[in-house]
């Protein structure tokens, strides 16, 4: 926290000292680039953190600029005019949130579609701004916009812009280090995993986009009085593209990068463009190089300074996380004649099976039997073509991963699905926070101190989890499996779905995992459904075994009963075809 305050104050001080050193002319010039920096700051947030590439931020800058222009033209010298600033930013942010939440709803990892939608929107906005002369002044725009009342000359407005920029940088810096920042990075890293922990990924992503757009709105609101002119060019895709370039060139993953990118490229362009026709070619080339080789942009040059960045110390006193309501019974699930088809291929062909009294149910079967598909259709990753799925007595009509997760179902995937770019601690935190956080908790740094008895136990059993600042990508395959299992367990689920939990593990790791599963089963009222091939595991863990074959139920019983069953043996050796 100390680092954060010091850094923010230093930045603010630096910004405020410029005019005395460089003169009024520069105050005016820099004012514009600070405004660009504000908008670029937002692009860096939504792109660098949440992985959402916005190709149309200019539209939000333009909307806010036009609104503020009208406000200033109407209220001229009254202090009410200042209200335009927060009003424009908030309005734009709300619009952006609604739009993004709608588009992201129910869609995983849709690739560049969202980016292309923002591009199309800004192109449309440009046309509207050009044509709607009565409101926007058409092609020539709105002119002779008065400045903000009470501010004389370029210097005053500069200070306002500089302070707002400094505060915005501090705010974004804070957000990135708060739980919401971790959630944004988690969404960019592995949306599916985040959804399966019960988070509303659409809202989380929309929040990032809305914050970015709010910053763009603030930029637009300042643009009007600074330039005294608002034209449709703000909504054009050249400007939106420039913002992306500023963020990329500066370094999109950092807070300061986009701002520095905007200022450096902006200032140098203004200076060199006329003298140096090759300047813009140079910028384009540098941008391409950044995309190819230098994702960190200019900020990689400042990498040594990262030591002074806002680092969370590992020795933080732990505090107890709020408990989750404990329900006495575990979840039951029943499949009734469930059918699933993908294209021409029938995956589940009238599967009927239900859980009974057993705590651990192992599902086995040859290749293509539909084992993983059973878990997928139960949690909403595959659409159902027929039959019913009943979880805990309630018919599940159109399951969604997050909804199923919030009913107490935790899932561990066949290939370990964690957040590779996040640290171990962050991975565990995201899992721990699920279902426990309320309202503005996402802004509270205290959440990083949360822990639970279950988590402590897992930390005791698996020492590597204590090296919390290591990124999850540095873990071995086996460690990743165990991390994912831990994350699933600390959500204190009522049903745990494990898909080959010991795949790729050494014998020692397998033994440790089996032990942990046995222990957890005792601690929580847990029903565990395991898909496995390793009969050793099945023998040690299973209370009951279900055999699937070609998308249908084949047999069930205890391990011995299933092993003696001639139909089951036939299916494994391939002689019954």
């Amino acid at each position, binding site marked *: 926290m100390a680092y954060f305050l010091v850094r923010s104050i230093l930045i603010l001080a630096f910004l405020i000292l410029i005019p005395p050193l460089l003169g009024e002319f520069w105050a005016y010039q820099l004012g514009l680039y600070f405004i660009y920096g504000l908008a670029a700051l937002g692009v860096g947030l939504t792109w660098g953190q949440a992985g959402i*590439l916005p190709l149309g931020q200019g539209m939000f800058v333009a909307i806010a600029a036009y609104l503020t222009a009208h406000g200033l033209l109407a209220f001229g010298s009254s202090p009410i005019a200042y209200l335009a600033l927060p009003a424009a930013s908030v309005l734009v942010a709300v619009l952006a949130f609604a739009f993004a939440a709608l*588009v992201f709803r129910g869609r995983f990892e*849709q*690739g*560049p*579609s*969202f*980016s*292309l*939608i923002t591009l*199309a*929107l800004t*192109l*449309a906005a440009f*046309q*509207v701004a*050009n*044509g709607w002369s009565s409101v926007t002044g058409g092609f020539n725009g709105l002119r002779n916009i008065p400045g903000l009342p009470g501010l004389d000359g370029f210097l005053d407005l500069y200070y306002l812009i500089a302070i707002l920029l400094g505060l915005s940088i501090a705010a974004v810096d804070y957000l990135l280090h708060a739980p919401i920042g971790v959630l944004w990075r988690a969404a960019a890293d592995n949306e599916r995993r985040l959804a399966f922990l019960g988070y509303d990924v659409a809202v989380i992503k929309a929040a990032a986009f809305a914050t970015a757009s709010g910053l763009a709105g603030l930029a637009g609101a300042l643009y009007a009085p600074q330039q005294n002119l608002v034209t449709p060019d703000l909504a054009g*895709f050249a400007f939106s*593209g420039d913002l*992306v*370039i500023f963020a*990329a060139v500066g370094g999109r993953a950092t807070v300061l990068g986009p701002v520095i990118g905007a200022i450096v490229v902006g200032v140098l362009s203004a200076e060199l463009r006329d003298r140096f*026709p*090759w300047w*813009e*070619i140079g*910028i*384009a*080339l540098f*941008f*391409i190089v950044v*995309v*190819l080789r230098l994702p960190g942009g200019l900020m990689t040059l400042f990498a040594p300074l990262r030591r002074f960045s806002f680092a969370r110390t590992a020795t933080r006193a732990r505090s107890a996380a709020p408990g989750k309501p404990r329900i006495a019974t575990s979840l039951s699930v029943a499949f009734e004649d469930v059918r699933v088809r993908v*294209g021409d291929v029938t995956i589940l062909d009238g599967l009927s099976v239900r859980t009974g009294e057993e705590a651990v149910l192992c599902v086995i079967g040859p290749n293509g039997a539909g084992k993983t598909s059973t878990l997928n259709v139960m949690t909403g990753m595959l659409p159902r073509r027929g039959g019913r799925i009943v979880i805990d007595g309630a018919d599940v009509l159109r399951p969604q991963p997050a909804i199923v997760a919030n009913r107490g179902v935790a899932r561990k995937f066949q290939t370990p699905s964690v957040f590779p770019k996040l640290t171990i601690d962050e991975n565990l935190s995201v899992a721990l926070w699920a279902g426990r956080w309320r309202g503005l908790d996402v802004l509270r740094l205290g959440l990083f101190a949360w822990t639970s008895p279950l988590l402590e136990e897992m930390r005791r059993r698996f020492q590597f989890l204590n090296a919390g600042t290591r990124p999850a990508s540095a873990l071995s395959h086996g460690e990743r499996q165990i991390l994912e299992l831990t994350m699933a367990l600390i959500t204190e689920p009522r049903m745990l779905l494990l898909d080959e939990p010991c795949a790729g593990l050494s014998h020692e790791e397998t033994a440790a995992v089996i032990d942990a599963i046995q222990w957890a089963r005792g601690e929580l009222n847990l029903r565990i459904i395991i898909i496995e091939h390793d009969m050793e595991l099945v023998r040690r863990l299973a209370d009951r075994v279900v055999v699937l074959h070609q998308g249908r139920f084949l047999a069930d019983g205890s391990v011995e009963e299933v092993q003696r069953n001639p139909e089951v043996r036939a299916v494994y050796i391939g002689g019954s075809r």
Partner: protein
Amino acid sequence: MEALLFTQGLNVIYEALILAILVLGLAVVMGLLNVLNIAHGEFIMIGAYAAYVVQRAGLPYLLAIPAAALVCGAIGLVVERCLIRPLHYEPFETLLATWGLGLLLRKCVELAFGRGYRSVEIPIRGSLSLFGESYPAYRLALMAVAALVLASLFIWYRRAPTGARIRAMVGNPVLAEAVGIRTRELARNTFITGTAFAGVAGVMVAPLTPVEPFMGLTFIVNSFFALVVGGMGTVAGLFAGATIIGGLQSVLSAAVSPTSAYIAMLLISILFLWQRPRGLFPRP
């Protein structure tokens, strides 16, 4: 009245065919290879400038076609090697890289030729009289050429051995390598063909529009969204997209205004991107 409808009908067909030719290069690069080449418009622009240069040199206009194909193909070769392959043909990354490429190409052309508009003279002057209405001869010639090119290309794609190998590679790249298709080289050649097509399309439209460094921007928008709506990677998708977007533009431009047509096209594209991002006839 019939004459008016006839001319309108011809216009719609014309718009659809021209758009199909303009989109062709992008359909190859984006539809088959999943490369989001947002500099596609710049390749068209370079083709148009090639036509200008050829005409200024006094050479027959037809020579502009191989000239443009060569220039754009050569640039495509460099781009594939330096941008697309290092980024592993990944959509997001190639979108960004080609955005930079587009800037670069625009600036280079601006440096070489200046910002002003150049005009390319229509190589086939006059108009033909059809059903009592006169229709520009060049447009008719373009329609004929476009139809011919598209038809032969599609026959080639479905019949020729290389066409089959491209289809194989696109549908199942792992198996393609297994049966001996050198996918790296085939992908590269396919990409270069895409950029060359864009250049040739530029030659075709050069006489009809002011040739200036920023002309590519209008083409890329229409092309991109034609593929979004029609669907990527299929012949049906290309035709559907070109017909819907091109036809829509044509009809609405005449009936209401070009701006409304443009906005309508954008709104439809947004709808598709939101609900049906793979388009009407996507690759299975």
